[in-house]
């Protein structure tokens, strides 16, 4: 019993070490491979950014709009009749930009881009493509991991900004035009509630989630050995780990932010 617990703990620690060292190894590879093609790296990064942020942009903006509208309507309807009415803009901005948007993006990116990365790299592993890169002297961290890491992280950060804007101002515009928000709340109130600290924490969360999703799924994909049936397992492991880490870290950061005022 204790032996089994020990083995499981050691395996978990070992995997955590490998995953956390992956972003460092990828960043280091940028400097190690300084004489190699930057064009190939840029092309791969832009491709990743396109598939992660540009292609599903309309979907993310729609999600932002709907969630912003719901939070605005709820906050206005519940708080306006009370003495807390003046806090509506702060509550809405914090709920949208700090909580809902980064978490929705993390969940969707895990299910969409994370699984795609784990599947692609797993397939490349099974098909001998990773070994072929290695045999050709092509650095795997530089050529495969770094573009996905940078692409997904940049996508997570930019989507957070755009989706928050869509949620706050798109939601406000839609709510106002439908007559759901009353007359006491103005767009300028929402703008005033967007403090640099809120933006900083939101972007920090988004960057952390992006790095986590990319690193965990790259690790899972590259951990596939030679059997095709390992790929769906790697997919599931990657998604579950990302969900757990993102929820935990999101909760920790949110509590810290609340405690520090």
């Amino acid at each position: 019993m204790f032996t089994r617990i020990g083995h499981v703990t050691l395996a978990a620690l070992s995997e955590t070490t490998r995953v956390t060292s992956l972003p460092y190894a990828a960043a280091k590879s940028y400097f190690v491979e300084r004489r190699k093609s930057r064009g190939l790296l840029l092309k791969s990064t832009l491709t990743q950014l396109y598939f992660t942020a540009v292609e599903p942009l309309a979907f993310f903006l729609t999600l932002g709009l709907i969630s912003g509208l719901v939070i605005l309507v709820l906050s206005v309807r519940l708080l306006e009749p009370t003495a807390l009415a003046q806090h509506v803009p702060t509550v809405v901005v914090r709920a949208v930009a700090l909580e809902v948007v980064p978490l929705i993006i993390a969940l969707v990116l895990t299910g969409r881009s994370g699984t795609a990365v784990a599947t692609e790299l797993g397939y490349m592993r099974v098909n001998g493509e990773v070994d072929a890169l290695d045999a050709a002297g092509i650095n795997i961290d530089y050529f495969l991991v770094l573009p996905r890491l940078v692409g997904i992280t940049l996508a997570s950060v930019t989507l957070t900004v755009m989706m928050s804007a869509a949620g706050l101002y798109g939601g406000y515009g839609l709510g106002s035009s439908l007559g759901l928000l009353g007359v006491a709340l103005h767009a300028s109130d929402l703008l005033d509630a967007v403090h640099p600290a809120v933006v900083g924490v939101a972007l920090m969360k988004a960057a952390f989630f992006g790095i986590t999703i990319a690193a965990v799924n790259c690790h899972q994909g590259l951990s596939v050995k030679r059997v095709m049936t390992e790929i769906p397992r790697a997919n599931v492991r990657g998604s579950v780990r990302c969900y757990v880490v993102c929820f935990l870290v999101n909760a920790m950061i949110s509590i810290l932010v609340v405690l520090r005022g």
Partner: protein
Amino acid sequence: MADSAGAQPPPALELDRVGVVNELGLPLLMRIRLTVQAGEALAVVGRNGSGKSTLLRVVAGLIAPRSGTVRIAGEDVFSLDYHAQQRVRTRVGMVFERGGVWANRTIESNISLPLEYHHPELDTRKTVRQVAEELGIDGSLNRPATEADASVQRRTLIARALVMQPALLLFDEPQHSLTPDEARPVCDAIERRRTQQRLTVIYADHDGHVDPFRVDRCVYLAHGQLTNQIPAGQRFSIA
């Protein structure tokens, strides 16, 4: 040939007591001693599972040996720093038995990628086209790799290895996916480089019938160990 200092150049490849184990600790290769001179063509022959592909993977740097040393052109590759190891590895071309084609690229991109990566300053198109013409796949350069047949994919791997002008070529199952007519230009391209650039070639094959590929020497691998060295031309059957 002696160099200016009068010393013999180092062998193209020297394996000294190389041992490899799998993840379960079971031996795959045991105390392999093998020397291949520059310009030589060697066939490593053995049954399926005897360790031929593992041996090639060790030389290509894909598997680190548990014991022993691997010297390529006199350099102990696994003790070198990263950049030196990369420099040595770009001089080794590997043609895998199966897989290895980058699925989301065209045939041309599959051939040119290592060259573009290591030498971004070069215009790769002319070099790639020349090698593709030699191997008879120049008509397929713009096709997606996944749409090409097995023979074109196989020759793509060979072209990818040759385009880097390797000093040592590792060729796993040379006849795999190639008809005799398709193998002939591949053989000619290799022989041309052996003559002009003293290319060293190691073929791995399961039955020793590597025609039309020409070999100077055969070694036999059984259960991860090298046994009697068998002269080329001598046919042997492995039941």
